[in-house]
């Protein structure tokens, strides 16, 4: 009796249970509560399980989340918490930074962020971030993946998780886009390559090489594609590997996108002058504007990178340069999303890899400080006009409601409905969760 007969000999319902149970046991999906073995069984029954496809791809049941999209503003370099979201006026550690009142009672910001202060009714400031990692690359890695950097594995970034768990909303556009990055792109890690982010180097230039080259007609392009697939098919036939398939899929996706009207989502030139000016003609401003356009068109996760926050010297002068573009961009983003009715379904995150030392150097610098720092969340069901957690009077220690980076990422996942206990096995058989062992801070949701 072959396995096939064994399976087909049973009636449908039992077969499903059997396969579901098999997937649970054999694939190591132990927390099937959120996964729904029904879904696995269905996928297996439907004969979808071909080589190159990941058996864990059937999506887990998502929670009832209001955030369909995430815009993650990543301030690289380590943003000084005391000068931005956790001002300590009158204390020596506070430096010359003044605290300004905002539109929300009980939320004060550093004086570098006056425009964001006008939108504070929409934001939740998290003052109790804490981590143990004080080196840029490693800390950024933890912020993006929730795991410590290891030599033996590349972890999947939060954007890749969101893309994979929630799936694309717009079948033509990529699920996950990174704007303004350099070489240090977040990675899909051990996920299949289709969950890799689409990088957009400069928001102004939009998506490059998305039109046919000069002199190449549609017809000629088609012939080229055909020839390409002729060359590839034999190889793909011989080497049935998910990497090969992903490569082919990437081509298909790109061609579909080239022909789609959704391509316009990448063009911030289509925005009115008023809107462009409101976001500010800066790298961050343009990045935020592009992020809004992408989200409007169904992209799940957009990371906008900002940089230069590593203010080891001249901290205060540097903040004079760094903060206004951020202030402008994020205030415009929040106001714009709100007016368009998108803020409810879009979680806006502002985060950085660590804070900066409360003690000020002789040359007015602040150094790396992971022990206590701040982040900001808005929209996506998060209550506005509030602060969560606090540091002591000098901004040195978290006094209340400590939030680790894992907790923070779990909170983002929670907002997006991604089950934080869903285990995905890496190809090497290691179990991973979206936010490692982080616990979501649920108190901040309305």
């Amino acid at each position: 009796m072959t396995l096939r007969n064994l399976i087909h000999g049973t009636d449908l319902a039992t077969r499903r249970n059997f396969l579901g149970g098999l997937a649970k046991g054999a694939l190591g999906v132990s927390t099937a509560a959120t996964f729904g073995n029904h879904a696995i069984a269905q996928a297996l029954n439907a004969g979808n399980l071909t080589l190159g496809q990941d058996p864990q791809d059937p999506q887990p049941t998502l929670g009832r989340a209001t955030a369909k999209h995430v815009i993650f503003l990543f301030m690289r370099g380590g943003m000084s918490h005391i000068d931005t979201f956790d001002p300590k006026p009158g204390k020596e550690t506070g430096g010359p930074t003044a605290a300004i009142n905002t539109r929300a009672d009980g939320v004060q910001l550093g004086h570098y962020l006056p425009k964001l202060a006008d939108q504070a009714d929409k934001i939740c400031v998290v003052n109790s971030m804490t981590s143990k990692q004080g080196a840029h690359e490693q800390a950024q890695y933890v912020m993006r993946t929730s795991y410590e950097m290891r030599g033996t594995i590349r972890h999947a970034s939060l954007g890749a998780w969101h893309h994979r768990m929630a799936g694309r909303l717009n079948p033509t556009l990529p699920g996950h886009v990174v704007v303004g990055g350099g070489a240090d792109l977040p990675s899909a890690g051990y996920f299949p390559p289709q969950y890799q982010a689409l990088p957009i180097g400069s928001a102004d230039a939009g998506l490059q090489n998305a039109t046919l080259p000069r002199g190449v007609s549609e017809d000629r392009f088609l012939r080229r594609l055909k020839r390409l697939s002729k060359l590839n098919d034999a190889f793909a036939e011989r080497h049935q590997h998910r990497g090969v398939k992903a490569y082919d899929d990437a081509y298909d996706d790109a061609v579909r996108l080239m022909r789609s009207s959704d391509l316009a989502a990448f063009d911030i030139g289509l925005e009115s002058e008023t809107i462009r000016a409101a976001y500010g003609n800066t790298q961050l401003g343009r990045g935020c504007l592009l992020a809004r356009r992408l989200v409007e068109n169904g992209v799940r996760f957009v990371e906008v990178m900002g940089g230069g926050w590593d203010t080891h010297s001249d901290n205060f002068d540097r903040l004079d340069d760094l903060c206004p573009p951020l202030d402008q961009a994020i205030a415009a983003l929040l106001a714009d999303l709100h007016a368009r009715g998108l803020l409810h379904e879009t979680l806006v995150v502002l985060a950085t890899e660590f804070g900066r030392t409360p003690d000020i150097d002789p040359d007015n610098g602040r150094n790396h400080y992971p022990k206590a720092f701040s982040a900001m969340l808005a929209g996506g069901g998060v209550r506005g006009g509030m602060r969560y957690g606090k540091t002591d009077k000098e901004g040195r220690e978290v006094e209340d409601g400590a939030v680790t980076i894992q907790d923070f990422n779990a909170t983002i996942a929670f907002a997006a409905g991604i089950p934080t206990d869903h285990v995905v096995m890496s190809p090497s058989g290691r179990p991973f969760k979206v936010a490692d062992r982080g616990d979501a801070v649920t108190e901040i949701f309305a």
Partner: protein
Amino acid sequence: MLRLTLLIPLLTLCAAPALAQKATKKVDFAKQIWPILEKRCIDCHKAPYVDKNGRKRKPKGRVELDTLAGIKKSKRGKVVKAGDADNSLLYEVIVLPADDEDIMPPSKKGKPLSKTQTDLIKRWIDQGANYGKWTGEKKSAKKTGKTTGKDKKTGTGDAKKNSGGGNSGSGKSSSGKSGKAEVSPLLTLSKRLKPVSQETLASFAKSPFRVRSVGDDNPLLQVTCYGQTDAIDDAALEELAPIASHIAELNLAATQITDKAGAAIARMPRLVTLDVRQTEIGNHGVAALGKCKELRRINLYGTKVGDYGLAALGNLSHLRKVHVWQTEVSANAALRLREAVPGVEVVMAADLPEPMADNGNSGRRRRR
């Protein structure tokens, strides 16, 4: 063959529990189940509280088992899925192998539950998870009081749901929040609602609409059409007729629909969220929405709607938010809607920041 040998024990493993359960005696939650939970689970799994050292204690893994509301609200998947113990987290984690790192209670908190106990819990869930009169609320009333007091300390800001206008609420308002927390309409509306058949759902695979559950295995549906907006016009909405009674969230942003779409949308009695921004829908189409009594949010940004259409929304008593930026709607009409539906927020304008003095053009700003 090797695979087969491997599979057979697995098969028996899956089939065994199915045969073993057929006990019939009704389990009494308060008398038989609660004592187990109270003794073995509640220490870690109770509503947030402040311990004697003033530290905030959250329920482990966000699972609360001390109140009925807590058991039901878990976002971590179904803690108790009535009638289906095998898919209930509560049961699943107590029958894991003793050396599994996810077993509950965890090994450092003592022995696993006995077979009698786990079987009892299984039987209770399989019988429909009847809680009898138990709600657990008496205890939690005290706890919630404490939590809110603590919240005032942590969440310094205002805790109001509607973050629209200036926050006038004082710290006091936060104490009221646990009381007014509204049960999600998605939960109440899905009660006794049979899911749409798999065949019907499958028939949408080729349609320009994407249809999926609103989440949490809820039979209510979310319908979007990103990337297909050119293909969707008034006629296309007819495709949604077979699932009209199940649609809770409908996103038709930037599609080709007009006033005529109103009639099709009006046939969706459980519609909670409607997004028709940047379409040609106008007064007549919006006026038809007066029939969707469950609507909470309507996004009319950039549509042709005016005062007449907005007025028709005045009888939607659940309405929380309407977006009418870049429409003809006047401030007076918005005011009248606010009078008709207390608590509704009408978003009329974008509160955009003033442009930067130098519009960010100069690379470096002047130094002091």
